[in-house]
C-alpha cells in the first residue's frame, strides 16, 4: 500500500479541480486494506465487493465533512465497519451480530475464494461465531499481526479493552475447536 500524504490529500480535496483525483488516490491507497477488513466480517467475496464499493461511495458523499480530525484510514474503516454491519443486518445472515451468545457459523467448502485446508476451515468456522467487533480485533491481530495501538486507532477502543477482547476471542475459538474434535 502506497503511503499517502494526508495533509496533501486534504488540500487537494478542497480544490474542485483536484478533488476527484485526490479521492481516486484514496481509493487506490485504502481499497486493499478495507477489502480484507470487510471480508473478516462478511467472509464472502461478492458481498465484500458490494460493501467496499458502498463504503467508498459513502465516503465520497461525506468527504466534504472530513476535516482530518482523525486519520483518513480510521474514518474509512469506520464507514466500512458500519456498512458491513448494515449489510449483515439487511441480509439477516446473523440474528444478532453483537450478541455474545451468537453461535452462527459459516461453511466455506463451496466458496471459490476459500483457499484453506480442513484445519483452516474449522478455524474460520470458529471465527465466524465471534461477535463483529471481536472478530475484527481477532483478525487484525492474528492475520495481519497489527499492533494493539494501530487497532486502537482504527476502532477507537482502548488497548486494554482490545487485549481483553482478543484473549476472549482466542478462548472462544479454542473451545469451538475442542467441541468440534470431541
Amino acid at each position, binding site marked *: 500500500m502506497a503511503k499517502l500524504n494526508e495533509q496533501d490529500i486534504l488540500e487537494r480535496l478542497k*480544490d*474542485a*479541480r483536484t*478533488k*476527484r483525483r485526490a*479521492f*481516486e488516490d484514496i*481509493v*487506490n491507497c485504502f*481499497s*486493499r486494506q478495507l*477489502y*480484507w477488513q470487510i*471480508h473478516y466480517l462478511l*467472509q464472502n*467475496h461478492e458481498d465484500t*465487493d458490494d460493501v*467496499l*464499493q458502498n463504503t*467508498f*461511495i459513502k465516503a*465520497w458523499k461525506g468527504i466534504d465533512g472530513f476535516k482530518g480530525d482523525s486519520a483518513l484510514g480510521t474514518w474509512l474503516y469506520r464507514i466500512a465497519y458500519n456498512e458491513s454491519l448494515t449489510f449483515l443486518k439487511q441480509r439477516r445472515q446473523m440474528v444478532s451480530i453483537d450478541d455474545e451468545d451468537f453461535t452462527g457459523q459459516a461453511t*466455506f467448502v463451496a*466458496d471459490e*475464494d*476459500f*483457499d*484453506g*485446508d480442513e*484445519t*483452516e*476451515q*474449522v*478455524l*474460520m468456522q*470458529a471465527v465466524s461465531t465471534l461477535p463483529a467487533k471481536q472478530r475484527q480485533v481477532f*483478525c487484525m491481530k*492474528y*492475520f495481519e*499481526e497489527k499492533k494493539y495501538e494501530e487497532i486502537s486507532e482504527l476502532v477507537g477502543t482502548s488497548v486494554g479493552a482490545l487485549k481483553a477482547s482478543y*484473549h476472549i476471542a*482466542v*478462548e472462544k*475459538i*479454542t473451545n469451538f*475447536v475442542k467441541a468440534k474434535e470431541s
Partner: protein
Amino acid sequence: MSTKDSRILSQNGGRYPFKVSDEYFDNLTARIMEQIPEEDVSDKNTKVLDINKNRRRNLWISVVSIAASLALIVTVALNVLPTTTQNVEEMRAEYTDDDYNEDLMTYTMADNMAVYDYLSGYAE
C-alpha cells in the same frame, strides 16, 4: 494465550485462508470511480457562478420582456389613438345642432310645446 489452548492458531500460522485475484484490485479503483457522479465534482465556487449566470439570464429576460411590452403599448397607442381622434372628429362633424337639440329634448323629457313656451316667454 497458552500453547495448549491455541494449538489450531499455531498450526495455522496466521494465514488468512481466502484469496482474491490481482485483477480484482487492478480494476477496483476504476470501477469505484465510475460510480462517483461527475456533477458532484463541481465545487461550490462553480455552483455560485452558475447561480449568478442564471440570475443574470433571468434579469435579462425580465428587462427584454418589459421593453417589448412597452414597445407594444407605444405601437398600439400610436396606431390606434389617431384613428380614435379621427373618428371623434368625424363624429363631431356629423353631429349637427339639430341632433344636439334633439338629444337635449330627449334627455330633459321636453316636448315641442315646452320648447315653444320657453322661447315665447310663457314658461314658468
